[in-house]
């Protein structure tokens, strides 16, 4: 077991190392000089340019030897220092990100868990009811083929503009100051509902279809046939099939995390939800490279941690992996 997790952990660490290195390398290998790009944007008087160039070179550490820059980068990273945001007037990137994280997590965690739970339940149900099956399949396929942001746009348009039920922009009402009052919490919730719902819907379709297909496959597996031959009621057989069909769904969750996170980012953009996604858009639009790099590293780290959690969950559910780790199976 320790060996298994050791192996997993080393892959994740390697991934993080590779990703961070790419992150660091890109601005240094891309055509054009990021500092020049930066300066050309701001209307500086020409005589200030050399001074500003020197300032930024120093700020970015570009005036140091190449290797030194790389070492500094890791040293800073390990101290949680992701540099400073240019567009937010020098605020530390790490802090800027941490302020946005709760919003993103508040969207992602419930959307992932609930859609996974509901999708699996629904898919299992569909697998045995022809009528439901005929409805679930087309809807499921349409939902999963929908780009996250478009579903978000449609949801916002229908429920926000046409029906006017929910606010379509922001994390809370601009008229309020963040505080622990019921009014504020109510506003938070009202703003949360639509981004959450649109994320939930896209993912829900995928899980439902996946579960349906897996259940059908499991119901044809040898253990199911044996139980049927011994007259076990279909309830028991389905319960077993469901449990075994969950395993690939857990793996699917792990492999989907990157895509889901990306989906959450664009959803936030549609709703101007003050999470990482909105921050990302601002970084792109303002060519704030430190912020962009910081967000990238943060997202990578988040996805890796989530992957590790899913790995642990998988091991807890599937005895085969546990035993395989002890080296008892070939």
């Amino acid at each position, binding site marked *: 077991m320790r060996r298994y997790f050791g192996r997993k952990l080393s892959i994740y660490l390697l991934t993080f190392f590779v990703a961070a290195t790419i992150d660091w390398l890109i601005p240094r290998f891309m055509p054009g000089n990021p500092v020049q790009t930066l300066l050309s944007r701001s209307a500086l008087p020409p005589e200030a340019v050399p001074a500003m160039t020197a300032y930024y070179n120093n700020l970015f550490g570009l005036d140091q030897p190449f290797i030194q820059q790389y070492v500094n980068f890791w040293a800073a990273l390990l101290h949680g220092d992701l540099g400073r945001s240019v567009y937010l007037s020098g605020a530390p990137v790490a802090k800027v990100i941490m302020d946005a994280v709760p919003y993103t997590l508040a969207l992602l965690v419930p959307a992932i868990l609930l859609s996974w739970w509901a999708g699996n339940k629904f898919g299992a149900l569909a697998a045995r009811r022809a009528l439901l099956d005929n409805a679930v399949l087309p809807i499921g396929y349409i939902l999963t083929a929908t780009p996250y942001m478009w579903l978000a746009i449609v949801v916002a348009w229908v429920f926000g503009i046409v029906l006017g039920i929910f606010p379509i922009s922001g994390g809370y009402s601009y008229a309020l100051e963040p505080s622990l009052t019921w009014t504020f919490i109510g506003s938070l919730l009202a703003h949360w509902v639509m981004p959450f719902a649109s994320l939930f819907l896209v993912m829900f379709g995928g899980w439902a279809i996946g579960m349906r297909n897996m259940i059908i496959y499991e119901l044809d*597996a*040898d*253990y199911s*046939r*044996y*139980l*049927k*031959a*011994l*007259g*076990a*009621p279909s*309830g*028991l057989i389905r319960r*077993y099939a469901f*449990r*075994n069909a969950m*395993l690939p769904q857990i793996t699917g969750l792990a492999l989907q995390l990157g895509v889901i996170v990306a989906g959450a980012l664009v959803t936030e953009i549609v709703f101007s939800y003050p999470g990482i996604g909105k921050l990302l858009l601002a970084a792109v639009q303002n060519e704030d490279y430190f912020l962009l790099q910081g967000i990238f590293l943060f997202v990578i780290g988040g996805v890796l941690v989530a992957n590790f959690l899913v790995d642990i969950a998988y091991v807890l*559910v*599937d*005895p*085969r992996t546990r*035993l*395989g780790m002890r080296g*008892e*199976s070939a």
Partner: protein
Amino acid sequence: MTLQVTDLRVYYRTLAGDVRALDGVTFDLADGEIMGLAGESGCGKSTLGNSLVRIDGRMKYVAGTVRLDGLELPIADMDRMDEFRFKDISIIPQYAMSALNPTRKIGRMVADLLESRGVRFGEMRTELERRLLLVGLTEAVLDRYPIELSGGMKQRMVMVLSTLLNPSLLIADEITSALDVTSQRAVAETLVEFRARGFVKGMIVITHDVSILYQVADTLTIMYAGKLAEKAPTSVIMQKALHPYTDLLISSLPEVGVRFDERRLSGIPGTPPSLLNPPPGCRFRDRCPLAFEKCAEEPPFVEVAPDHSVACWKVA
């Protein structure tokens, strides 16, 4: 009589039409009898075994009756048959190695199954452990996952589980074919032991290996192309088979002691007919050295001597 099968017909549905895998089979199985069922692949022997337990979606019940202990089985009715499965008629399937749910501890699975059939696991546990010991397993296996067991252990576990409720009839479907010779013998002898201890009354042992059947079966039934060719006590068939197919089949099997240089054996030329649109008359006709005009008509499966039935015009 434990089991009476009369004119049983079960077909497979395919797009090309019905495959007549079981095309009118009639036989009896006496109390305490171990009947060996042998034949070439595709002759319908496994279909016969399966249709007595569970006719699944791909199979189609066409005609015939099955009576077990005097009661007619609703073999065409999947739901009503549930009552009989496991308790009255049970199977050790061909895929015994993968028959256990991989993500449940074996004891838990057995308990779930028993409780779902209205049997208290607690009451059965002592008997279960006794039978496990009989096949060389300890109660510790109940606390294990299937992956922790070797292939042979899983096979024995399934054997014990399938017979736990003392069914009247047990179907053992190709249960030795994936095993090494040493395990084959152990498994085959366990079947005999189960009968001796009264765990099962009658048994149909399906295999393509006639020599295994010679070791354990009281009677031998040979199938050919969806029909029964011959049924007789094992020793009778071995000494004096009446159906030409049986005869040729047995004489094509090499025995320890027979050598190519000294006595060259030979197989049966030709292949069995397609069961999609089988030709009329005796289905062995094309390969049969004794065939004559009469064989264009279908030979009935008749008793030519006590407990010895054959479907062949030359004999009957």
